[in-house]
């Protein structure tokens, strides 16, 4: 073991390089955490954090008493979370496997570029695009109407809302999410693959016994990280489309916090709900990490 001084001498350049990042993290991530104190205050912006009166757990009332508006937001969040973890998360893995199996390097590059592009569009643009294409007055329906066919309402139908936002997420981010998996796939040892081929393993067996074990740690890592912010189901995306279907189908915890805090001025309750959401996120990360350890994976950090 080196002494602290030796380590400082050895690592000081690296430490200095890390300084700006650490400062930014402290300033913009850790310091604002202190603001969570307004969850226990009757916060009034004009009085500020220092002068707003403390009200104990009053702000947690909607959570504790099961206010229907809050429960609606919670249920919607959980459903969307489930859909996103079960259906959306595996998609980039499949896509990466397909891309990886593409022999033509040029075709692969081209496909990748096209698939990455939607990621760089902001939600405002993506939502507007969907609206222009599938909106009730959009391209599809305008065409159907002019051809005297019955129109097809997708936008503004509460029952289809979760399906619609999930499709938007898939369209926008699946391509981008393949990057890490592709990087992991490039680590697969060609010699092992060749050996498997020589041994007569079928494509499915090669996938199962060679490829997947190589990328399993990455999958587990990303899944745990995903679970951490799993309750954040796309604030911007949903708030942009909320007025089309109403709060019943579209209110999630994030929009609940926005609508009650920033729009409604009930900062305390909004902060309380946000705080609970954060705590659930932490619990999920720690729990999933523990599970990963139990299964012999490395997880986000080693034991």
């Amino acid at each position: 073991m080196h002494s602290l001084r030796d380590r400082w001498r050895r690592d000081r350049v690296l430490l200095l390089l890390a300084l700006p990042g650490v400062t930014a993290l402290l300033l913009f991530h850790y310091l604002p955490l202190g603001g969570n104190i307004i969850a226990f205050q009757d916060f009034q912006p004009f009085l500020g954090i220092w002068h707003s009166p403390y009200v104990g757990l009053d702000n947690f009332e909607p959570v504790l008493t099961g206010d229907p508006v809050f429960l609606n937001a919670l249920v919607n969040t959980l459903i969307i979370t489930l859909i996103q973890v079960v259906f959306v998360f595996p998609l980039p893995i499949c896509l990466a496997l397909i891309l990886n199996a593409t022999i033509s390097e040029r075709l692969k590059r081209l496909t990748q570029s096209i698939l990455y592009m939607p990621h760089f569009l902001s939600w405002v643009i993506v939502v507007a695009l969907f609206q222009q294409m599938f909106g009730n007055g959009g391209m599809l329906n305008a065409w159907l109407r002019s051809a005297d066919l019955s129109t097809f309402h997708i936008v503004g139908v509460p029952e289809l809302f979760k399906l619609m936002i999930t499709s938007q997420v898939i369209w926008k981010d699946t391509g981008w999410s393949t990057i890490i998996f592709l990087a992991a796939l490039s680590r697969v040892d060609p010699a092992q693959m060749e050996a498997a081929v020589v041994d007569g393993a079928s494509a499915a067996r090669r996938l199962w016994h060679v490829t997947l074990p190589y990328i399993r740690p990455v999958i587990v890592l990303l899944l745990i990280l995903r679970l951490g912010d799993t309750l954040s189901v796309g604030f911007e995306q949903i708030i942009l489309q909320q007025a089309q279907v109403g709060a019943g189908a579209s209110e999630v915890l994030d929009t609940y916090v926005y609508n009650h805090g920033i729009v409604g001025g009930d900062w305390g309750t909004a902060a309380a709900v946000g705080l609970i959401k954060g705590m659930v996120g932490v619990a999920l990360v720690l729990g999933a990490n523990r599970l990963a350890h139990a299964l012999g994976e490395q997880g986000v950090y080693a034991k």
Partner: protein
Amino acid sequence: MAPTFSRRHVLALGAATGLAPLLGACGDGSPSSPNSSTGSVKLPTYKPVTAATPDLAAEPAGVSPGYFTYPTASSAASQPVQGEAVTALTYTYDPIAPALGSNPYWQNLNSKLGTELKIAYVPSTDYKSKVATTIASGDLPDMVAVQGVVQQMPAMLKATFTDLTEYLSGDAVLAYPNLAALPTDAWRSTVYDQRIWGIPVPRARVGTVLYTRADLLAKAGLSLQPNSWAEFKEMAAALTDERAGRWAFGQIPFNTILEMNGITGNWPGGTGAWQAEGGVFTHSGTTPQFMQALENTVELMKSGVMHPDHAGAPNTKRNAWMLAGTTAFTIGGYAGWGKFYGQAKDVPGFRLTGMLSPTRDGTGTQVRTPGPTLSSFTAVAKTDNANRIKQILKVLDWLCSPFGSSEYLALRYGVEGQTFNRNGSDPTLTEGGRSQIFLPVRYLAEASPVIYEPGNRQAVQDQHDHQVAGVPLAVADPTLGLYSETAASKGASEQQELDSVLLEIQLGNKPVSAWQPAITKFMDRVGNKIKAEYEEQAGG
């Protein structure tokens, strides 16, 4: 339009209030409210000033004067203000203006004013937090624009700003002739705890307008003013042709439907929802007429006269539909009227009028929701220095110079040949002038609005006609000048839930019967308390 008063609309206000410098109606005409909160303070005496005779008179009371051409500027009515620089904090809906050094408009203003005006300003969306932090820091400029109602407003004003009552109450205001010309109802909104706390930036009382493409209605052979709910529906159906991609409305005309059922107020937001009779306050959401209006809304929605993508469409899109003729109507604040002419300059035959809400069966009295009385009021930072206060009031008085005066020309157009040129007598801003006048002096103080559309007689006439017909129908808001702490601190959050139920009903996701439990919850949580607070102030 989103009325300035409601906190929840601070974010949305941007588009509406700021865009039409010369528009808006005001005046002292609106029926006065039964309001004893302002009863014991004597409001400033009203004494109009005019620098030029209007082409269309400011009658009946409350209607703005109309001008077809810009009057040849008369001589200065007020003396320049002397003294040291005055600092100010306000908001803007426009881009940032060039700094003083490269802004001849601003330099000219300072030299005419005789006092250096130092203005700091932020976009309206950030203004609330800017004011909060400025007050918290304790380092206030001389003048601060106070927008909206915040929690513990009376205490905040008392702790931070100068009580201007002795300088402005009753005849004292006559020392500042242009301030005396500001409408009485606007002053009412500057009173808290029986004291006057600032100078109002007055706004049109015309309120929200159902903007109507008169040319499209004329082409379809329709009357510009239906006279009953039945005629209104027929008109909407006649304007709709789904196959051609045309619909009557791009937005649910809910306020119009409310007014047809005899209820005033702006929804969502619920501003102006309180009615009073004999000292008893009632929230209009609890009335059977409101339920009736909800039924009517659902009926109108089902008839297919609404643009299929109306839900959630932003203002800009709805306006674009109207301009393109995809819809025949759009709904917006009166202050935005003038901007449509610029946007529609390529639309042949474009003519815009305002439609009034008929009564249900075509008989009885029509009602109309008045607009907010002011955009903000400008308060003076706490000081005991009487001379300084007088100097600041003189500056504000100068900024309120009337249409037609040479000060007004300097305030709105700047320097002839540099920031504006004349087209006949009409001033036209130059390219540089257009950006220089973004300096938001208008949001510190300005005169009562007038109707003036350079080179467009028809536009002036149409706006004036709408005011003449609409202003006398306005039903006074009984809460004007009253302050409810519950409404200011807890109201918005409950209102937000109410609005969300309203939207679900309008979209057809929930039955009309869902309203009853929602409004009952609202009344239980805050409504009854707000009612008691208003009644106490109004009665005691």
